[in-house]
């Protein structure tokens, strides 16, 4: 399943699962991720699964590239561990107060606001990975007629909770952060909670996410219920 294993610097192993982005390749990445995580090999101190790569970082004081590479080549990856995914509904308010880039998306896609939201909402998206900033989920795939490029000039500050699109993906800004994705709405819920150390992320790789529209009033009252 791994097409090629190489080194990323002197303290990480780079596992390449291919160049395409699809659920089947990503499921393989997640299988390896789960298997290695469970087994706790000496010296491995971090794992970063992404669409089609897995990066394994290790402590150079405890192990080295050849040891970790041989270990990865030797492990038995089992399917049984992966069946932990859940389905999560994310409320999103697409009021003009939040949908900063909807005009841009309308123009680029030549679709009306209504049509864009109709295409985006109430559909199942697969979580390929989380990261960049703590807890940010990378979700896909958007319909073929919904794909826009990043902003030409990224924003210095994208508000916390922003729901945004780029290419075949959607994401949620878990913190205020710089970013270049097209913002079309905002969610009032906390997608990352650092006080829950064992499970800080609401959405994890392999989960399914559905965006449900809420009104501005519902948004404002959301955290008072």
């Amino acid at each position, binding site marked *: 399943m791994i097409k090629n294993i190489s080194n990323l610097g*002197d303290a990480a192993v780079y596992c390449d699962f291919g160049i395409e982005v699809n659920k089947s390749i990503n499921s393989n990445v997640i299988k390896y991720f789960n298997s290695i995580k469970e087994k706790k090999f000496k010296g491995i101190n971090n794992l970063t*699964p992404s669409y*089609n790569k897995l990066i394994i970082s290790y402590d150079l004081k405890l192990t080295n590239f050849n040891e970790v590479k041989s270990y990865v080549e030797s492990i038995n990856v089992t399917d049984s561990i992966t069946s932990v995914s859940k389905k999560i509904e994310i409320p999103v308010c697409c009021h003009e107060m939040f949908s900063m880039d909807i005009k841009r998306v309308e123009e680029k896609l030549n679709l009306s606001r209504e049509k864009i939201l109709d295409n985006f909402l109430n559909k199942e998206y697969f979580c390929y990975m989380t990261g960049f900033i703590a807890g940010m989920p990378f979700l896909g795939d958007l319909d073929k007629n919904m794909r826009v490029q990043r902003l030409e000039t990224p924003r210095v500050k994208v508000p916390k909770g922003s729901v945004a699109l780029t290419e075949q993906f959607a994401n949620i800004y878990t913190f205020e952060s710089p970013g270049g994705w097209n913002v079309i709405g905002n969610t009032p819920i906390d997608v990352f909670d*650092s006080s829950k150390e064992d499970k800080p992320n609401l959405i994890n790789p392999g989960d399914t996410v559905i965006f449900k529209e809420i009104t501005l009033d519902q948004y404002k009252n959301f955290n008072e219920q």
Partner: protein
Amino acid sequence: MSNNYFDIIRSGINSTFQDKGREHLYHIGIPFSGAMDNRNYLMANKLVGNKLDSAVIEFAYQGPHIKYSGEKINFAITGDVIFKIKKEHTEIEGNCYESYQIENGDEINIISTNKSVYGYLAFGGEFDIKFQWNSCSINTKANIGANNGKKLDTGQRINLKKINSNMDIKKINYINTKIENIRVIKGTNFDYFSEEGKKIFYEKEFIVSKLSDRMGMRLEGPKIENIVNTNIKSEGLIKGVIQVPADGNPIIMLSDHGTIGGYPKIGVVASVDYDRLVQMSPGSKVKFKEINLSDAQTLFKLYEMETQNLLSQI
């Protein structure tokens, strides 16, 4: 209420609590963080008789000015740092790599780092601070760690919950060596760059930009031309990765980096040079030198032995 504490009269530019950092969290988007210059961090703790993985205050450029209240306590500063110790009737210029005893009412004023970036202030004891995922390291981006994940602020009070009973004064002669050549291992997208671009990367000088912080170090210099694609499908990053975005200026990922990135990776800084890399201040010249994996691993082992040897002399 604690009886031993210090008040921050001036916070400095980027003063944070740091320790060895966090592991096993890249997959949820949380980087290692931790002290940028690991050797100086360990030496600070050893000089005050702490466990080596204890919390210290890391500062950049200008450090904090603090006033201490409570029982006698030891402190030490490491790095290349200019600081003063003010007692009731005297004010002295302090030396790095030497522990000092202070008492109620004394002040420590960390004026600046000298042609370097980071310095470390350790107290012989334990701060009363929050730990998350076994680390106090402050990650200001996700507001994780001590002090609600925010850098220290002027007017704050920091409590100590324990003071070490052993207050022996310790000292070591140590000078931070500077390097101009940063050794790098070829990155996974090395072939995305033109022959000319590769040549520029290894032969020309780059300047450390002012836009550098705990997340990344930006470099300015001749542009490195990409002939394949200026974006890749987003994938994991580690500290030391050198990404080259469309503008052709390299960015080196440092300890608080975003865990995922979509720019091609031209190289990765060898672990042996990381402590010295982070100490290069804006305006410094950097040249990259290629090294292979096996040499990089060997040199890191030697560097680590040297660190252990220094610690054993304290």
